[in-house]
C-alpha cells in the first residue's frame, strides 16, 4: 500500500529496459492505446502500462500479457505527441519480463519469438520450414499434429508454389560460418547482461 507511487520500479525500468528512460515522458493522452491494431486485446494499453510503472505495479506489469500484443506496426511511435519509442519500450518490457521469468506461461508470441531466435541462431538465417514445424509443435505433440493437419493445405500451397522447400528439413539456407556469428552474439549477450540486471 504505502509503496504506491514510489519510483522503485520506474527506476528499475529505466536501468534495465530497452528505451525505458522514456517512460516518464508520457503525458497520458492515450493516442498509443487508440492506435494499436490489436488494441482490444491489450489488458493494459501502453499509456496505462506507463502509468502502472510509475505507480510501482511491478508484478502486474511484468506478468501482463499486454506487451506481447505488439505487432511492431509503429503506429504508436508515429503518433505519440511526446515522441516516445513505444514499440521498442513494449519489446523491451516483454523481453525483460521474460528474462525475469515473469512473462505469462505459454504466451504464444513469447514462445514463437524464442523459437525464431533459436532458429536463426543455428545458421544465421531463418529456416522457415523448421520454424513452421517448430511452431506447430510449440504446444506439444498432439496439438502439433492437429495444427499441422489444419495447416497442411497452406503448407502444400507454399510447396506447390515453390515458396517452401520440404528438403530444408535436411539443412537449407545458412551463412558460411555460423560459429563466428554465434561468437559475436554471445559476446553481445554478455555485454548486455553486464549492463543490466537481466541475467
Amino acid at each position, binding site marked *: 500500500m504505502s509503496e504506491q507511487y514510489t519510483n522503485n520500479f520506474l527506476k528499475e525500468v529505466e536501468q534495465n529496459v530497452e528505451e525505458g528512460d522514456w517512460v516518464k515522458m508520457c503525458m497520458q*493522452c*492515450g*493516442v498509443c*492505446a*487508440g*492506435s494499436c491494431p490489436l488494441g482490444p486485446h491489450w489488458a493494459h494499453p501502453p499509456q496505462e502500462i506507463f502509468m502502472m510503472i510509475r505507480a510501482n505495479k511491478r508484478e502486474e506489469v511484468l506478468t501482463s500479457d499486454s506487451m506481447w500484443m505488439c505487432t511492431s506496426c509503429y503506429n504508436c511511435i508515429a503518433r505519440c*505527441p511526446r*515522441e516516445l519509442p513505444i514499440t521498442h519500450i513494449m519489446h523491451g518490457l516483454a523481453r525483460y519480463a521474460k528474462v525475469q521469468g515473469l512473462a505469462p506461461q505459454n504466451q504464444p508470441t513469447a514462445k514463437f519469438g524464442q523459437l525464431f531466435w533459436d532458429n536463426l541462431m543455428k545458421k544465421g538465417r531463418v529456416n522457415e520450414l523448421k520454424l513452421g514445424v517448430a511452431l506447430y509443435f510449440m504446444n506439444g505433440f498432439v496439438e502439433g499434429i492437429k495444427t499441422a493437419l489444419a495447416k497442411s493445405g497452406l503448407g502444400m500451397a507454399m510447396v506447390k508454389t515453390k515458396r517452401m522447400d520440404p528438403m530444408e528439413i535436411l539443412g537449407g539456407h545458412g551463412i558460411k560460418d555460423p560459429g563466428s556469428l554465434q561468437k559475436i552474439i554471445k559476446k553481445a549477450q554478455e555485454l548486455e547482461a553486464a549492463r543490466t540486471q537481466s541475467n
Partner: protein
Amino acid sequence: MTDAIATNETIVVVGGGISGISAAIEAAECGKQVILLEKNPSLGGRVSQLYKYFPKMCHPTCGLEINYRRTKANPNLQVYTMAEVNKIDGTSGDYTLDVTLKPRYVNENCTACGACADAVEGEYDDEFNYGMKKRKGAYLTSTMAYPQRYVIDPAMIGTDDAEKAKAACTVNAVDLDMQEETISIKAGAVIWATGWQPFDANKIQPYAYDRNDNVITNVEFERMLDPFGPTGGKILRKDGSEARNVAFIQCAGSRDRNYLKHCSRICCMATLKHTKLMRECYGADENWKASIYYIDIRAIDRIDDFHQEVKADPNVTFIKSKVASVTRDRDSGNPVLNGVNTEGYHRYANEHDLVVLAVGMEPSVKADQLPANMIGDGSGFIQADAESEAGNGGIFAAGVAGEALDVNRAVQNATGSALRAIQVINRVSSTEA
C-alpha cells in the same frame, strides 16, 4: 506615395490585429507619433474573424468599433494597410524600415458605396471566411472593415471586371494602374505584433482533414456561427445538412512534437465557447450533442467558471483522450473517432456528424524569419533578449508574436510593449532636447 512623415521619435507598429491596434493607440494617446502597418486591406486581424469572445460571449467588433473610433480621432496615428516590412536597419532610437506597399487599386476617394462590387461578376475565395465562401473581385473585407475602403483583388486586374469596376465608380476611386511601391520609414522604436495563424490542419494526417469533408477547423466553425458568415449562422456539413452531433478534438497540432510543441492556450476556451454557441444556435431544440476530446482542459484562472458552466450542460460530454484517428463509417460515411478514454481505459469508436479540430496558433512570422535580428524560443515566438525584459534593443514583441495568448493577455502585453517603445522615444527626445 512619398515616404511617411516619421522621425527617430516615431514608433512603428507592425501588424494591425488587436495587439498592434492596442499598442498603437495607447502610445498615440500618450502623445507619441505612431505609424501602424498592416499587410491586409483592413485592420482587425484574427479577432475580426471571430464571432464572439469568451468568457463574456460578446462581439469582438464591439471593442474594435471603439478602437477604430480612437484611431480616426487621433492625429498622432497614421495607418498603412497592404504594407509589409522587408527589412529593419539601425539600432535602438534610430531604425529605418524598408516597407513594401501592395497596390489596392482603390484610392482615398472611395466612399465605400459598393458600386464597383455591384458591377463585377467574377468571384474569388474569401480569405476572411477561410475560403468557405466566395466574394467579388472588388470587395470590402467586412461591413466593419477599417479603413472603410474597397479593395480590388489583384487577380481581377486585366479582366473585363476590372474595367467594369472602374466604369461603375462615380468618384474616380478605382485606379487600375496603381503600382507596388517601396517606402522607407524612420523609427525610434518598433513594436512587432504580427500575431498568429491557425496551424495547417492538412499536416495532422490522422485526422483526415484533407480527405474528409466533415472534418473542419475551429476557426472555420467560428465563421459558420456568424449570421453573415458562409452558412448564415447555421452549423452545416459540406452536404448542407445540419450538424447536431459535433466532436471537438483538442490539441489538434498543439502539445505535439510532431506539429507544434507548445500549448496554444486559447483552444480549450474556444471550444468551450463553441459548445455554448451550439446551445445558442439550436436554442430550445435540445436535439444536439457536443463531445470534447481533451488531454487537459486549460481554462486558466477566473474563467474556470466558464468551464464549470459548460461541464454542467447535459448536452456536452468530456472525453479524456487524444483522438488516435478519424476514419469513415463504412455505411453512413460519417466521420468516426477512434481512441481510448484514458480515465480508466475505455475504448471508443464514436460516429459524429461533424468533427471540429481545435487547431492551435503558430506565430505568423517565426522569430527566425524576422526582418531584423530577434531572439525566438523553440516555437518561433519572439522573446526578450538576455540583457533586459525590455526586448531586442528598440524592437519589442506584442501579443501573440511573443507567446500564445488570449485577447485579454495580448492586449495587456501590447500595452506594456507600447510603454517600452515610449521609453526609447523619451530617451531619444531627452538626448536631442
